[in-house]
């Protein structure tokens, strides 16, 4: 096929993908880093990105599958942060934005988790102390003495 036609097609495709927000200008910057000494630079750095991103997404997926009480949101947030960093480095805009949102969810869930725990610990503590008081009353009612008296 004619090179000129292909070039035009490439320009249209790149413009569309840019407009869709899937990539941003940083991707174009990476393309300019190709030269005679590094003709495959873009391919190489994007291949690294795909590899690392896939690993991080797998980690996040695994962490979320751990069952409600065992999800390590701190780790998920850290992995999402890393993914955000490398996505921004290659211009993968939608993934970058998604990671930012993801971390926001995690931070919210972490604080909700702590709040839940606070309710739970308060109930538990109240129950246990009330059990102690109940026994103490029973002892006094039976005419006994309490420790420390």
């Amino acid at each position, binding site marked *: 096929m004619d090179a000129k036609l292909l070039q035009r097609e490439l320009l249209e495709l790149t413009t569309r993908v840019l407009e869709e927000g899937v990539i941003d200008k940083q991707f174009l*910057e990476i393309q300019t880093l190709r030269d005679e000494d*590094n003709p495959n*630079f873009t391919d190489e750095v994007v291949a690294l990105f795909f590899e690392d991103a896939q690993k991080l997404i797998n980690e996040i997926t695994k962490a979320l599958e751990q069952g409600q009480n065992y999800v390590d949101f701190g780790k998920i947030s850290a992995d999402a942060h*890393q993914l955000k960093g490398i996505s*921004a*480095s290659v211009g993968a805009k939608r993934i970058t934005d998604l990671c930012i949102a993801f971390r926001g969810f995690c931070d919210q869930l972490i604080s909700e988790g702590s709040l839940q725990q606070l309710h739970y610990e308060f109930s538990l503590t109240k129950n246990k102390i009330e059990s102690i008081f109940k026994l103490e009353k029973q002892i006094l009612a039976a005419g006994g003495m309490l420790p420390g008296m």
Partner: protein
Amino acid sequence: MSAASTVGFGDLHILAVDDSSVDRKLIERLLRSSPFRVTIVDSVKKALELLGSLHTPKVDMIITDYSMPEMTGYDLLKRVKACSALREIPVVIVSSDNIPQRITRCLEDGAEEFLLKPLRQPDLSRLYNLMLRNNNRH
């Protein structure tokens, strides 16, 4: 410039630190077009080993990512500035997060510059000029 104050470009040594292979590849490519000697490592621990080794050529600038597991770029900054043999080395911190308190803290604690990722050629050109100015003074 007189011959006595001319610095051999290849003598100036940049040490870059980043735990991300994507970002290491990027900075390697950007630094390749510079005339300076470049060493790139993936952890603060390795950076400190290099800086402490007698076999390592003198480092004239450190460019470090901020967020790294174990020791951060900020930890590296503090260690370098606390060491009499290393404290004169300018430390540039790079981060993908734009957090004003973080930036202020790094600059107040001795960072030469704080740059936002992704790094581009103009950022590095500025740093080269800085290195050349520093070395002409000595």
